[in-house]
């Protein structure tokens, strides 16, 4: 009755979120007095998972699964859960995991809690804390089904290294044509940039930047920090930046370690979307901007003067701490 965890990889390498969900699954397994089984799909080296508490890895190697396919992946995980007699299945909050999790829950007839931010408060009844109202609140959700699916919020739990070894075992789920009825024809992804979902730091720009031509310094700041770039709703509505960068209530939620907002006043919808970020910095020339009430650190000043200086200081810092 192990805890099953879906450890995502990309191009054969595990994503950071995979280690986070594994760390989480390990502690849930400790609570329940059981072990952790991971499922990997076309990953090169699953031994790394042992460092995050995984006891066993079911390795799926299947060319048809090279491109993510939510239904086929959900069916594979269902079969893995059945084989292991898993009572708890943990997935991340990536776009792909959220895509498959609800189908997986139906397959397993399992109650599903998404956006979970902490270990279960109790195992019986099984109760987890999750974000609700787009980060304006939390709720405690009780899952009453025999099998439970948990979607862990990104960066909510962190990585917990342990000394251990994961035993690998081949796993070949039975998939039919029915699993491949949605066919990906093209993928358009910037491979040289950090995505908002995977980023530890996000640098975000708002209307205060005056126009899309001024994004160079945002990108440079992001570059120095190894950060993803994001923007406020008006900026995406005006077409200065792509929709995929819009963070906030109707855009993407951001839960990073560090969020730097430049020229964003901090509308309630924007603040809701970034509330789960741990450290928030605002740079804005208006001292009355609501963002200053939500931020940990702030600079009241002209972004066009402050940001270039910040880039310089960060470069110095990096050179001294390399």
């Amino acid at each position, binding site marked *: 009755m192990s805890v099953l965890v879906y450890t995502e990889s990309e191009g054969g390498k595990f994503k950071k979120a995979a280690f986070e969900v594994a760390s989480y699954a390990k502690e849930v397994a400790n609570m329940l007095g059981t072990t952790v089984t991971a499922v990997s799909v076309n990953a090169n080296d699953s031994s790394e998972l042992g460092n995050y508490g995984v006891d066993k890895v079911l390795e799926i190697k299947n060319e048809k699964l090279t491109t993510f396919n939510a239904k086929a992946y959900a069916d594979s995980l269902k079969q893995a859960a059945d084989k292991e007699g898993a009572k708890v299945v943990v997935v991340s909050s990536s*776009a792909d995991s959220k895509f498959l999790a609800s189908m997986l829950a139906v397959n397993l007839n399992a109650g599903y809690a998404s956006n979970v931010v902490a270990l279960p408060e109790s195992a019986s009844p099984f109760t987890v804390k999750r974000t609700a109202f787009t980060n304006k609140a939390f709720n405690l959700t009780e899952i009453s089904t025999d099998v439970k699916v948990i979607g862990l919020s990104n960066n909510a739990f962190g990585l917990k290294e342990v000394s251990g070894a994961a035993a690998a075992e081949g796993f070949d789920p039975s998939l039919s044509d029915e699993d491949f009825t949605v066919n990906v024809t093209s993928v358009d992804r910037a491979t040289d940039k950090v995505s908002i979902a995977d980023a530890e730091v996000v640098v975000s720009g708002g209307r205060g930047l005056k126009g899309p031509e001024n994004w160079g310094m945002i990108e440079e700041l992001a570059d120095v920090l190894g950060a993803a770039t994001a923007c406020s709703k008006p900026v995406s509505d005006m077409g200065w930046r792509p929709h995929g960068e819009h963070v906030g209530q109707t855009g993407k939620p951001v839960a990073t370690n560090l969020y730097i907002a430049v020229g964003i006043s901090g509308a309630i919808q924007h603040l809701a979307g970034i509330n789960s970020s741990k450290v928030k910095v605002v740079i804005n020339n208006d001292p009355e901007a609501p963002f200053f009430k939500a931020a940990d650190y702030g600079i009241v000043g002209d972004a066009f003067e402050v940001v270039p200086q910040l880039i310089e200081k960060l470069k110095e810092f990096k050179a001294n701490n390399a």
Partner: protein
Amino acid sequence: MKILVCISHVPDTTSKINFTEGDTKFDTNGVQFVINPNDEFGLTRAMWFKEKQGASVDVVNVGGAETEPTLRKALAIGADNAIRVNAEATDGFYVAKQLAKVVQDGGYDLVIAGRESIDYNGGMVPGMLAALTGANFVNTCIGLEVEGDVATAIREIDGGKETSTTRLPLVVGGQKGLVEESDLRIPNMRGIMMARKKPLTVVEAIETAQETKAVKFEKPAPKGEVTLVSPDNVGQLVELLHNEAKAI
């Protein structure tokens, strides 16, 4: 093409969130309710299919009588019929099962639901509905075309987008991008008048187990004061982020 748009009745995005009855219930006092923004993008896209391709568009909500004004607004925007499943929407799985019944009874080809509601943010209903009805499913959908029974959908992925083709019946979890913000429609007087005469059918809920239950709510701990750094001393911010916040 028969389209069903699932409508969640949610607090307006500017609402202050409070709880009542010992933090077990959302406090609706003074709160304005709206069509869930992710659903509204889908509804507007459905209107395009209606106007350009002659699709019929029904809307459905699982909720009590208090959600009917939200359904009427969807009718005023242009939907043909509204259905309300008379039940309290407490768990995504429960709601999906109610909707699956409506989808099966109505024989819909395309179901558009928001990728998540902005209140519970469960993000469960579209995928569960697809799995329960055996339809194809595309989540976080930001572009959708249908020709005959072939659909081309664009999905937002982490760091980019992905295009796929599939066949009807199809469920999509929609969001901004299905249409632009500027395409959203404010109901005009004629639409509002017509909406009053359009059918709003109330159906009773099917009996089914409840898999999850929100037992308690809490608000985030109040934030401390912001630490201000002088624009003439930007280096101090770097120090604070490193030594105090340990964020870099």
